[in-house]
């Protein structure tokens, strides 16, 4: 009984220590310069698949979303992670991530998950899609599955880390998503305000990497102690 009580106490102290000494890495991603104009998907959508075009109000057909930038340069869809941190995945117990097919587009277009974490691919459309992931890292398996309207969700997991693993629909060749897979829970994707948060990072020295699919990667070194650390990145379109 005494041993059990001591064990519980030890776990409690250890756990409390972890909470106290873990901190968040936060920051804002900004884009400088004018990105190339996004391309109108409408003509291709209308020509190839009118049923997709019919899902949008007249004159509101979608464009590409390569550069998602706010009025003050807030830069979304940048994947931020701790470079070189591996073997820390909690993917097996993490809640599944969801990739939806809606309006003949993938949503979100940029997503990050852990190795071993379930990725659920859903078809919310009234048309057929094929879910075709094309990993390039050995160990991650390529899949190509048809998903009828109203069909059950498809579930995938990837055992190896990989940046921007591509998902595509070959029926609707403008449909793409890029899923980054990390071997740790320490990553984030910047939101529409350009903000990101990597939560509960243990104390230590790290290299933070911000990666945009079009503009490549930037890194900064940080030291995490018991307080949140701010790291901002600025990308530039030349």
């Amino acid at each position: 009984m005494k041993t059990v009580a001591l064990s519980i106490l030890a776990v409690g102290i250890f756990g409390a220590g972890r909470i106290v000494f873990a901190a968040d890495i936060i920051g804002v991603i900004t884009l400088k310069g004018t990105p190339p104009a996004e391309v109108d998907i409408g003509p291709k959508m209308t020509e190839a698949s009118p049923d997709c075009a019919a899902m949008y109000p007249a004159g509101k057909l979608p464009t590409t979303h390569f550069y998602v930038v706010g009025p003050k340069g807030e830069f979304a869809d940048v994947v931020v992670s701790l470079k070189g941190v591996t073997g820390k995945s909690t993917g097996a117990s993490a809640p599944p991530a969801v990739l939806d097919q809606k309006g003949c587009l993938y949503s979100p277009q940029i997503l990050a998950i852990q190795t071993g974490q379930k990725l659920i691919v859903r078809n919310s459309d009234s048309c057929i899609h094929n879910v075709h992931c094309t990993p390039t890292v050995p160990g991650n398996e390529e899949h190509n599955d048809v998903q009828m309207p109203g069909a059950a969700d498809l579930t995938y997991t990837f055992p190896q880390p990989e940046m921007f693993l591509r998902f595509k629909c070959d029926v609707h060749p403008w449909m793409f998503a890029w899923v980054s897979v990390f071997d740790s829970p320490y990553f984030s994707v910047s939101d529409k305000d350009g903000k990101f948060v990597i939560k509960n990072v243990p104390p230590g020295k790290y290299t933070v990497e911000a990666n945009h699919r079009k503009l490549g990667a930037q890194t900064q070194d940080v030291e995490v102690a018991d307080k949140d650390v701010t790291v901002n990145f600025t990308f530039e379109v030349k």
Partner: protein
Amino acid sequence: MNARVQNKNDPWLHRFAVLTAIITFFLLGLGGLVTSHEAGMSVPDWPTSYGYNMFALPIKFWKGGAFFEHTHRLLASGAGFLTTILAVWLWLKDPRKWMRWLGVTAFLLVVAQGVLGGLRVTLKMNDLGVIHGVVAQSFFILMCAIALFTSRFWVNWSAGEKVFCVTRGLWTLVLAVTVLIFCQLMLGATMRGQHAGLAIPDFPAAYGKIWPATSPDAIAHYNAQRMDVNGENPITAFQIVLQMAHRIVALTIFILVAAGAGLSWRQLGGKNPLARLAVFWLVLIVCQIALGAWTIWSNKAADVATLHVMVGALSLVTGALWCIIAFGRQAGEATIAPAGRISGAFSVSPSVAANK
């Protein structure tokens, strides 16, 4: 029994062979559309389509990329069926042993090509797609050759009614250019198989230069500026070099075909079918270069890129047929005077001699 007698009685066999070759040509074009629309994997199963019998797929699924992939499968089945009939027909009716085996070869090749296409989908092997494209070109040559061998033209030609000789140099030149065109088509198929869109978006310059920069910084800059609806893979330095090689080979082919056409005209005279075929070949190459440029200027519009593939196939077949027709009629340079006037020793091909 000579060649004339052998084929004289079966014009329908020739017509059927021509029909099969035409269907093959359209099949090749449809395959080009599949790749141009990035639709090769839109129907993930094979030989079924979305779990249905291929021939019973409900029309509601014939949409988007699946329309091109599925119609390609149906037309391929049709071409396979026609080729099978042709092979059986040749086996039963054509007295030339080598023609019978040519029919068998066509049958085996069309089966192999169908399986290759299916495995490309089910095994998800992109490289098989490139091989599938190259085999398609070879099969098209074979079908056109069978159409030629069953024609009245070939019978007359074999019988030597239009006696003349082609210099060995000219024949070798045309053969070499035909092989070069085949290599060029393989290069093109490899480029298309990269699924990276246009590695170089301008023409005749390349990123505004004669030879584009391929440093990592330059590649990063190109990728940052590329905005394509199809959102392909990022381009690499290798893909840029590949397209530059395609351009250089195209220019080389143009020069060599122009030389071949000029020599044919001079040696054989303007009324000779081979000289006319060579000029037609040159016209095709000019069209092909224009289509290549248009492919780039249109940002690889699917229909233009597909036309480029089809005219490329026609260029290859034209060179191949020229070589086949002229085969056995080569003579040394000294034996032939300009405009087909034969002087000195005359070299008669075995087929001509046999039919005399």
